[in-house]
């Protein structure tokens, strides 16, 4: 059974249709890549699933139950949460406290376990030595890893990662791909928006391509990247 299912999901802003009757299924433990040109509706898709925006039509199902209409915090406690395209943090809290708060409220554990788990997640993403630093002092790659530790601490089973590798160099991208594989091995299902095609080809089990709010292709990464419609809309002729 799929852990997440999206049926005919539609979002219009006035006359602009940002997302047009998109269907998708995410299997438990799967990594689904979402690609497409800027403005294709990728972030809108994430916002609708995570409850940041309300769909104009269609519905989102988590483990078979409809969740559209729930608030973001309720969706998070249920088991779906997202990172932000521009990494967000609680600037004057310590790095540890950033993760700690997500455990307290997202997972709903008490102070002691939340602190211990926050330390474990910081270790996991490689930020343990920064635990006591103020979050606002982190560099961009560190902020992205903190964002990841935060969503892991909420104990959500479905993670929506919005360009979590943007701005990273090649070495950092490779490390990030390895880290996300480990995240999957820890029982998470992932949807990943990414522009770095090599990372998507390495990481994703399946890829879904959006263009002008519509799904134009879906399948294994290597098949999708050979699809003429995808090349025309997104990758460009030079890519082949």
């Amino acid at each position, binding site marked *: 059974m799929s852990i997440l299912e999206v049926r005919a999901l539609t979002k219009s802003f006035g006359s602009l249709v940002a997302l047009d009757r998109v269907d998708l299924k995410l299997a438990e433990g799967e990594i689904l890549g979402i690609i497409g040109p800027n403005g294709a509706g990728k972030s809108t898709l994430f916002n609708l699933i995570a409850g940041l925006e309300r769909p104009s039509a269609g519905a989102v199902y988590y483990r078979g139950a409809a969740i559209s209409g729930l608030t973001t915090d309720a969706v998070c406690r249920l088991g779906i949460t997202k990172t932000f395209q521009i990494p967000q943090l609680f600037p004057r809290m310590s790095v540890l406290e950033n993760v700690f708060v997500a455990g307290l409220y997202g997972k709903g554990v008490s102070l002691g376990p939340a602190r211990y788990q926050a330390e474990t997640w910081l270790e996991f993403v490689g930020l343990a030595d920064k635990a006591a630093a103020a979050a606002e002092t982190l560099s961009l790659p560190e902020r992205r890893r903190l964002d990841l530790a935060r969503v892991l601490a*909420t104990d959500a089973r479905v993670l929506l990662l919005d360009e979590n590798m943007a701005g990273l160099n090649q070495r950092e991208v490779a490390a990030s791909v390895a880290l996300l594989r480990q995240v999957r091995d820890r029982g998470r299902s992932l949807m990943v928006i990414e522009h770095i095609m090599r990372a998507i080809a390495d990481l994703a089990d399946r890829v879904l391509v959006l263009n002008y709010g519509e799904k134009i292709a879906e399948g294994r990464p290597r098949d999708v990247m050979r699809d003429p419609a995808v090349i025309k809309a997104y990758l460009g002729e030079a890519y082949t």
Partner: protein
Amino acid sequence: MRFLSLGPGEVAALLLLLLLLLFPAAAGAYQIRLATVIFMWAALAGSWNLLAGYAGAVDLGPVVYYGVGAFATAALMLRAHLPFLVSLVLAGGVAMVIAYAVGTPTLRLRGAYFAIGTLALAESAKQLALAWDRLTGIPLTGGSAGVSLPLSAGYLLFYYVMLALASLVTAAALWLGRSKFGYGLRAIGENDRLAEASGVNIHRLKRRVYVGSALLIAWTGGTAGYWLSYINASDFFGAGLTFQMVVMVLLGGLGTPFGPPLGALFLTLAAEILGTRFVYHYLIAIGVLIVAVSLFMPAGLAGVGRLLRSRRAGVQP
């Protein structure tokens, strides 16, 4: 996590509380009255700090609950002939109900819109209170003439009630510094969208602290009304009270447990000392003091200790 282990600041605060409990035995009526004023402002500023300093919501209408507390306490004493403390407790309940109803929609406003909305609310509350008796036919606020209360029991009662309120507010702030609820509020104050995406029910948490803060402000207002034995809507719903709370918190240290009592102490004493020496010009001097503190101590008086410690640590190799 620490629960019963106390930090040095908390131990000092408990010792100070012990001294203040014994203070009336050694002090004259004037000193006791002055201390009562300081406690009152510490309670008010501290209550405002709970919402603004921790959850980051700048409320410019806390005075609504000050007025509600005063008039509800007076009405219960005068019409229902209840004793003062019973009336005070019940008036707190009235304020909580109103705060719950008002907070549910207004707390959804963000940033400056919440500040403007609550400021408008306070002005509306004042006009409503002024017109209440005429509009409803139920005597409650006495219109612009106000309400007189029986001359009160004696200043010691007010000293201890105000001390209890100031201590309660400070203890609440200390608790926020180390509790799950406090961490949730701080997360909201720093980045409310991210807090929501991390599972924090931001509306429920904000409403809870808003209602709690309204209760403490209403108790302070009810006590102040009986103490002064005369209340009227223009004074008890006046925006001046709100701004004094705000200035005291900013002077003392926003989002710190001991900032508001420090701000209350500093500003009340400054006004008292300067007001007796320079009867006509003391407000200018207070203005200069406020500007100086905010220029040279942006973290407030409570931040000075931390600043000195870091300076000292900085020069040592």
